[in-house]
């Protein structure tokens, strides 16, 4: 399992592996927002937490189609399925690798981008906390979507269509925490709910992902 | 015959029209595809049973 994690991380870091690209995408989307909605700084400050959450979510989403599809195409997935490693563990490790290479950098970069969007002062720590709690759920849910669409050539768009509705609760609670935090309101309820969703997703979804993957390998 | 719908006539009538159109669409689509698939199946059944 550790070998698999290390391999996935190494692949992500190698040229062309896409590490850092999610980050760059996040950056660019954030930068494009003022271009499209106009540069008024109070407007930007109001929408900043939401935009940052949405940007992080989209960056996660875009990197999902490499999560399993590459291994499927070159046959690695067939071989992994016949290896002495339960498929549930394989998908969990892959979700973890995805989070380390995509979710974690996004969390760390979000405060910097908050500055660009005039995020109000108290918002920074809450943004960080909400992303830290929420992004693992995004990776795990995304892995489920990737497992569903793995047999399809360039299923990227279908993957987005399937995964985005599943992201709704995470997004709502995550953005709510960040939004309330930014204006100094109480955040504990949405924070608890967000943690609950993440815990539930991490605990249960790998079984669904493995089941679906087994069907796809058939 | 026509009831007096007052100032909301447009609203109510357009709601009815759109809904009935959507219902008609799903029924028509189902029937159209159903007919086509049935004909296709019969054609293929005939062909296959001829060839053995």
């Amino acid at each position, binding site marked *: 399992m550790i070998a698999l994690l290390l391999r996935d991380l190494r692949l992500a870091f190698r040229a062309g592996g896409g590490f850092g690209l999610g980050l760059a995408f996040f950056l660019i989307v954030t930068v494009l927002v003022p271009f499209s909605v106009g540069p008024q700084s109070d407007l930007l400050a109001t929408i900043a937490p939401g935009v940052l959450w949405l940007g992080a979510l989209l960056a996660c989403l875009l990197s999902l189609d490499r999560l399993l599809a590459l291994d499927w195409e070159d046959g690695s997935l067939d071989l992994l399925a016949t290896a002495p490693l339960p498929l549930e563990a394989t998908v969990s490790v892959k979700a973890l690798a995805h989070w380390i290479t995509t979710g974690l950098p996004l969390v760390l970069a979000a405060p910097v981008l908050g500055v660009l969007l005039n995020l109000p002062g108290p918002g920074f720590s809450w943004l960080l906390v909400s992303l830290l709690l929420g992004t693992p759920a995004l990776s795990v849910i995304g892995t*489920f979507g990737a497992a*569903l*669409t793995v*047999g*399809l050539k360039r*299923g990227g768009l*279908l993957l987005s*269509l*399937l995964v*985005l*509705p*599943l992201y*709704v*609760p995470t997004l*709502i*609670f995550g953005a*709510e925490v960040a939004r309330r935090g930014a204006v100094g309101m109480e955040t504990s*309820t*949405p924070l608890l*709910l967000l943690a609950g*969703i993440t815990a539930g997703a991490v605990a249960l*979804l790998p079984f*669904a992902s493995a*089941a*679906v993957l087994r*069907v*796809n390998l*058939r | *015959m026509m*009831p*007096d*719908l*007052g*100032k*909301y*006539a447009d*609203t*109510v009538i*357009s*709601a*009815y029209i*759109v*809904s009935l159109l*959507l*219902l008609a*669409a*799903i*029924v028509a*689509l*189902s029937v159209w*595809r*159903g007919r086509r*698939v*049935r004909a*296709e*199946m019969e054609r*293929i*059944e005939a062909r*296959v049973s001829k*060839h053995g």
Partner: protein
Amino acid sequence: MPMSRTDKANTFWSYANPKKFLATTERMLPVLWVLAFACLAIGLVWGFFFTPDDYRQGSTVKIIYLHVPSALMAINTWLMMLVTSLIWLIRRHHVSALAARAAAPVGIAFTLIALVTGAIWGQPMWGTWWAWDPRLTSFLILFLFYLGYVALWEAIDDPDTAADLTSVLCLVGSVFALLSRYAVNFWNQGLHQGASLSLDKETNVADVFYQPLLVAIAGFVLLFVALVFYRTGTEIRARRIKALLARERAQEGMGR
């Protein structure tokens, strides 16, 4: 993949046999169609022509005969898909999976009707076509789930694989749809009416509106059943076409 097993006895499950299902539904369908259209016509005509205006909402209240039944059926369609998906996953009756597939577009149509009539109603009542009210928002999300479900069916060509994957999606999706419902409620308090069909009649829609509404609901339910039976038959035939073509290929040898 073992083909669906058929229970010998004349039990409920014996209708899972495609041929038997076709034969049975074919006999029921004409009656169903007639009943459905009759109920729909009676309910809607009664509602449209022979009910008074509401003292607050004016004549717009007539939209209720379309809006409420379609909203109701939009949710129930998903529930039906959830049940049939579970049956497929557990008992592996092909008809069950195909019924779920057949129902999804019907659900989309109902969801659209609820959304559109709601939007049209919203214009005079709330002064806007659309508001991010939790009820409306969860319907939009339901619509997205339907879209994803149908898109997944369409994208996979092996029927059993598609059935398995969409069933799991339906299961997982139901959980997330429920979560979304609560999340949306938490996120925004809304403008929309509460549930009307409670047992406590006092606080609810008056009888004059209520009776035609019930007929219209019956019409929608019957239409749903008729459509799903009919469409499931179509799916069964489409599936048979696929099987026949595959068989033909196999028979013709490896193309030589």
